[in-house]
């Protein structure tokens, strides 16, 4: 399974909660500044902590494994992208993503998920504080990602 050559790296400690990422993402296909259909989500906590979360482009992606029409497919960059023309709206992908990263959009009549904007993610471009960066997936990033994934895994088991 190819690993993305570049990846969206998230540093929650740098997040200032401005929501630019959500707005930039939501404005992509609908031309609106309404964050609900955003593929990236900022989660706020009572103590002021903020964590931006978006698709991890899992190696064994559950969404991909339940899609039977080819609407979700892994592209040459290793990213799981969605093709609305092939989507039949069964929403299985949305029901099985453990992280809540696939939504079904009534407006688009299709599943929507992060595809890293085909190589130039708007969220990273819109982030003023470096909390979301689009970086080469080199060894140091990879190590961080793996550490992140490990904590995720224990978190997933805890849910």
């Amino acid at each position: 399974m190819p690993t993305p050559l570049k990846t969206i790296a998230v540093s929650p400690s740098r997040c200032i909660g401005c929501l630019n990422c959500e707005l930039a993402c939501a404005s992509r296909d609908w031309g609106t500044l309404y964050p609900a259909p955003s593929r990236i989500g900022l989660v706020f906590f009572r103590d002021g902590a903020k964590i931006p979360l978006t698709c991890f482009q899992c190696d064994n992606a559950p969404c991909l494994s339940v899609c039977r029409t080819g609407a979700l497919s892994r592209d040459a960059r290793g990213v799981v992208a969605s093709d609305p023309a092939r989507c039949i709206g069964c929403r299985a992908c949305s029901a099985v993503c453990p992280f809540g990263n696939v939504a079904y959009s009534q407006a688009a009549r299709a599943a929507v998920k992060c595809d890293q904007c085909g190589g130039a993610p708007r969220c990273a471009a819109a982030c003023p504080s470096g909390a979301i960066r689009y970086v080469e997936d080199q060894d140091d990033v990879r190590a961080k990602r793996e550490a992140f994934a490990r904590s995720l895994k224990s978190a997933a088991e805890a849910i």
Partner: protein
Amino acid sequence: MPGEPDSCAAGGGVPAGAALPGEAGAGSRPRLAEPLVEGTVDGVRVAVPRGATILEAARLCAIEIPTLCHHEGLPPEGSCRLCLSETRGSLAVSCMYPLRESGFAALTRSPAVLEARRYVLSLLVCRAPRAPRIRKLADEYGVSPDPRFMRDPDGCIRCGRCVRACRASGPEAIALCGRGFARLVTGPFGRPPEACVGCLACALACPTGKIAFSERDGVRRIWEREFELAPCPECGKRAFTREQLAFLGGGASALCHSCRRRLMARELGKAAALEAPGGPALLRAL
């Protein structure tokens, strides 16, 4: 995983090719590894992978061919006949006709094509005279229903998109049965389909909007069946039917995607806090 690994290939005119387990396989995707063949569509030169259809070639040239039964995510069936084009002096079903050799020359608006398309439309409009999409096409082509075939128009054009969508998503709850005027989409033995999980893929796939469904008080009704929409344990929003969650098994849950993301962030925060200096204090704050 729902469905047979080859559930997309069943019934399709074009074999699905060898989809890797776990990677989706659609019925009609042209193999990109195929060599290119060259030809023209309405005189526009185009090169496509061998085995691509006339419809795909036309779309590459930005030439529009109207379609009804075709869906890019489903195996083609060629049942509505609206997409006719002309090649080698005879009519071809564009959404299924594979281009195998260089030198093809397809015509999408020749007199023969337009005449045949008008005739097809005059029949389709008898089946679904009120469907907005059919009416728009009929207006565009100046077609009125042929009274000889106007019998109990029920809004269904028997294109089978719903059946293919249901088969692709797994349950295979409905099928096209019978012939001629008696042909219709139904559950087994004409009864409400027991295998239906209420996912709505059929209703969304239908080009005429024939498949009715409703949602009220947390209950979805479709195919004369009722499905309880499971409430998200966090926020109460209802996104999936219990039957669909059971059908998907394993990782599927009634948690809506925003709550799932929120829970994930909280657990992540806890995991990070445990390792951070001053962790326990952070942990209480989350």
